[in-house]
C-alpha cells in the first residue's frame, strides 16, 4: 500500500484516497468530432515511468489534487494543485 501526500492533510495511506486516472485531460466541447470525443472518453497513455494523475483524499479532506508518480517504483515525484499546469520534467 502506497502512502500519498495530501497537500492539506499530509502523508496518508493509499486506502484513504481515490484515483481519478490521468490528469490534464482536456474536455472537448459539443462541436468535437466523434473521434476526438472517443479519444477523450476512452484513450489513455499507460506509461512505464512518470505518470500525472489526479487523486482525491476521499476519506479525509475530500480535496482533489494532481500527483506525478513513477508507475514502476511508485515513487511520488511531485504534488500540485488541480488548477496548475504540469510541472516541467514530467
Amino acid at each position, binding site marked *: *500500500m*502506497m*502512502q500519498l501526500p495530501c497537500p492539506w492533510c499530509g502523508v496518508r495511506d*493509499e486506502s484513504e484516497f*481515490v484515483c*481519478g486516472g490521468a490528469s490534464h485531460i482536456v*474536455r*472537448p*466541447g*459539443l462541436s*468535437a468530432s*466523434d473521434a476526438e*470525443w472517443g479519444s477523450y*472518453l476512452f484513450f489513455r497513455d499507460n506509461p512505464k515511468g512518470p505518470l500525472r494523475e*489526479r487523486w*482525491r483524499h*476521499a476519506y479525509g479532506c*475530500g*480535496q*482533489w489534487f494532481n500527483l506525478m508518480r513513477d508507475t514502476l*517504483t*511508485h515513487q511520488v515525484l511531485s504534488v500540485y494543485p*488541480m*488548477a496548475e499546469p504540469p510541472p516541467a520534467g514530467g
Partner: protein
Amino acid sequence: MPGYRLPAPAGQCIDRQQRVGFTFNGRAYQGYAGDTLAAALLANGVHRVARSFKLHRPRGVWGCGLEEPCALVDVGSGPRRTPNVRATLLPISEGLSVRSVNCWPGPEFDVGAVSGWLAPLLPAGFYYKTFMWPSWRAFEPTIRRMAGFGRIGTEPDPDHYEEIALQPDVLVVGAGIAGLAAAAAAARAGARTVLLGASARLGGQCAWQEDAEAAGLAAAVRAAGVRILTRTTAFGVYDHALVCAHETVTADGAAQLPACVLRERLWKIRARAVIAATGAFERPVLFADNDRPGVMLASAALKFAGAYGVACGRRAVMIANSDAAYAQAARLRAHGIEVAALVDVRPGPHPPTEVPRLLGEVHAVHGARAVAGVSVRTGAGLRHLACDLLLSSGGFAPAVHLHSQAGGRLRFLEESAMFVPDGPAPSLVSVGACAGMFGREAVLAHARAVGEALARECPAPAAAPDGCGRSAPLRPVAGKAFVDLQNDVTSADVALAARENYRSVEHLKRYTTTGMGTDQGKTSNLNALLLMAQLTGQPAAAVGTTRFRPPFAPVSFGALAGRRVGALYRPLRRLPAHAWHESHGAQFEIFGDWVRPVAYPQAGEDLNAAAQREALAVRRQAGLFDGSPLGKLEVYGPDAAEFLDLMYVGTLSNLGIGQARYGLLLNENGTLVDDGIVARLSARRFWVNTTTAGVERTAAAFEEWLQCEYPHLRVLITPVTARWANLTVAGPRAWDWLAAAGLDGALAPGRTRHMSLTDSALDGVPLRVLRASFSGELGYEINLPAERAAWLFERVWAHAAAVRGSLYGIEALQILRTEKGYLHIGTDTDGTTQPQDVGFARGVARKAADFVGRRSLLRPAAQDPERLQLVGLLGVDPTQVLPVGAHIAPGPAPAVSEGHVTSSYRSPELGRGVALALLKAGTRRSGERLTAYHLGRAFAAEVVMPPFIDPTGARLHG
C-alpha cells in the same frame, strides 16, 4: 525406529519436568513442554508422518521450520480445525489432536499410494497434456479430490483476529544474532526500534545452543528499549515499504480453550527504514530417493538435537556440497550422534575433518520405507554405508524474499551458488545470512554499523558476502531425485521441461509446479533454477529467479480479515425511527446499506399479501412511508444554478424559489446514472434528492466536476442524508390525514402545487415539505431533523384511523411506481441506457447548453432507432406476473434476445400483472404481441406505453 532423546544440555527449548500428551493419527504419544510436534514425533521414533502430494510416497520430517515441505498436518477439530500446519512449527500442548494430510487411512498404509505405481504416467505438465481431451472439466473433480492438501473446517471460526499498525523509525525483521546486533545498535543510536522474531526465543539458531554472545545480544536489545514481537513473521513488503507481519497468539490445536480466544494478530508496520535479518535456508543435495523418511536437512538434525534434545537417528551419513557440512558434522558428534561418514560431492580442496570422509556421489539410498543405508560412487568404486539418517548439506539459499519484494536487485555468487542482494533495496537493507554473510565477526560488525547508520538516517555500509564456502554445480540426477518434495517435482521433470524448450524460469515453475506449494519452494527454487542452468547451458545468473511474491509464509484468512467479519463486515444503516417501525409490525430487509421495512404484514398475511393491501390503501385512501434513506445534498453558492445546469440533463437555473423539478444525471458516456428531484430553496441554495444508493456516488461526481473541471465556480456541496429524516404520506386522502395531524393549512393541495417545496413547522420543529410523488398519488414528502422522526411518525399515525390510512413498505412502493411507469435507475436501466431510451428525448432537445454526457448523445449509436427502450408489457394472461429477467425473443433459445423484463408486479389497482421492459426499438412497437422466455417457460405479452394508471396525472394534484 531410529529417533530418541539426547541427555541435557541438548534440548535448550524443552522442559523435561513437564510431560505433554497428544495424539497423532489417533495414537497417543508423550513429549515435553517446548517440543514442536515434529520434535516430539521424532523423539518417539515416528519418522513417517505424511504422504506426498502427487505420488503419495511416504515422507518424513525434512526440515525444522517454515521451509518444511513434507510434514504437514491437520490440527484440531470442528470449527477450530486448521489444515496444512507445519509439524516443525506447531508447539505441542496437552490434548493436541493431529492427523496427517494427503493419506487415508494413514501414512503407514495409504490407499492413494497407487498413484506411485502410476508415476511414469505423471510427468511434469501431465495436467496440461493429458486432460486436454475431451475437456479438463471432465477430469477436474477427480484430480482436485486427489490433489487436495488437508481439509478445512466448515463451521464459522469462533476466534478473534486483530490488526495493529506501527510506525517505528527502524524495523528489524529477524531475531538471530545479526538482527539482535542491528536492533540494539539502532535503538542505542536513538531510533524507535521494533524487532520481529519468528520463534518465541531470541537468538535464531544460536537460541538452541549454549552461546554466551547471543545471550548477551538479546540482553542488550532488551536494555536498549527495543520493542520485541516474538512468534511474529514478516510475510511481505508492499508498496512504499509497508511490512506486514503475522503473529501467532494462540497456537493451533491448543486444547481446553475458552469459547473465543485472540488467535492471531496482523501487524502493519511502516518504518522509516527496514533491516532484513531473515537468515538463509539450507539447500539440499540432489540424489535419487532423497525423499525417503530418514533423509533430512543437516541443519534440521542439528536443531532437533540442540533445541529439543532429539537425535533423529542412531547412525548418520552426511552428504556435503558445502564447507558448512564439516562444522555441522562436528556439532552433531558433540551431541553424541554418530556420523559414520561425510560424503563430499565436490572436487577438492576439502577442509580437514575427524569424520571419515568419502569423495563421491550418492549412488542409491537403501530401504524402501525408511533409510537403511546408502551406496556411494567413489573413485574406488561403490561403497555401501549402513545408516538410518541421511543428512543433506548443500550450502545455503539466503532468504532474499523481503529484499526482493522491496524492489532490490539480486546477484549470483558463482562459487557458493547463491543469490545475494545486489546493494540495498529502497528503504530496506539486508544483514547477516540473508545478505550472504555467514562469518560471525563480520556479520555482527556489519549489522551494528547498519543499525546505527539507519538510526541516524545515514547511508548503510555495504555488505561483504562470503557465501559460506564453495558449492559444486548441480547436475541432473537419474531416478526419483526430488527437487520439490512438496509438489513431487523431480530432476527428470525439470529435464523434461528443458527438452520441451521451457526457457523462462517463470514458465519452468508453472509447467513443473516447482515452488508452488505451501512452502513456496524454500528448499527447491534455487536447485530448480541451478538445474535449469545446467540443462540449458546458461549461467545461473542469466536464468535468474522467479519473483519473490508475498506472502513469505502462509497467512490465515482470519488474520487478513481481522475484525471485519460478521456484523462488522459491512456495517448497516438503520432508520432514525427504526424502533418505531419495529413496534408497528415492520418486516425488515436489507437494501444497499440500509435496513428498511419491506412491508407491515398483519396476522395471516404473507409479504406479498401485505404489499398488495398496502399499495391498494395508497391508491384508495392514503399511506405512510419512511423515505429517510433517500439521498439528499445541499448545493449552495452564487454559481450553484450554473453548476447544476452543467450536471443535469434538464435546466434548473430557471426554477423559481420553492419550485421543484425532476432531473436525470448522466455520466460522460451518456449513460443514466442517477435521478431525483431538485428544488430551489433560495437564489443560491438548492435541495437535491438523489437515489438512495446513488447519493455518495453523486456527491463524489459533483465534487470531481467542481474541483477538477469547473474550479472557477463558487459552489459548496454538502451531503445531508443523515441529517434529515423523510416521512412520506401519499394517496387521495394524504392531505386530510396531515391536516388532522395538525400540519399548517398553507400546505393544502389548493395552496401548494405538485413539485413545490415549502418550509413549514409543527410544534416548533422545522419541516421541509416537498409536494412530489413516486406513487402517482397526491404526495407529501416531509423532511425533518432526523432525531424527531419517531415523534412525527407517532403524531401522524395517531390520526390514521380518520382516513383509514396504512403504513407501507418498499414492496408496495415498487408496485405503485411500476403501475405509474416510473423508472428505477439500475433496475429499469442498464449500462447502455440514455435519456432518449426512457422517454426524455424532448428534454434533451429543449436544452441548448452543454451538460455532462451530452456529447455522447450525439454519437451515431445514440441515434440508432434499434436501441433498447423502456416500454410497458401486459401479459396476455392477466393473472400472470411476468418474471423479471425474462428475455424477449423471436423464439425459444437459441435466439437473439431483443430485450428483457426489468420490473414486474401484480397491480392490485388493475387486478392484473404489469411489467416494464427494455425492448429493442420498443417505442415503435406499441400494440405488438411478443413472447418472453424464462427458464424454459414462455409468456405471451403485449407492448404498451406506460403508465398503466392515471395517464393524465390528475391524481398527483389531489
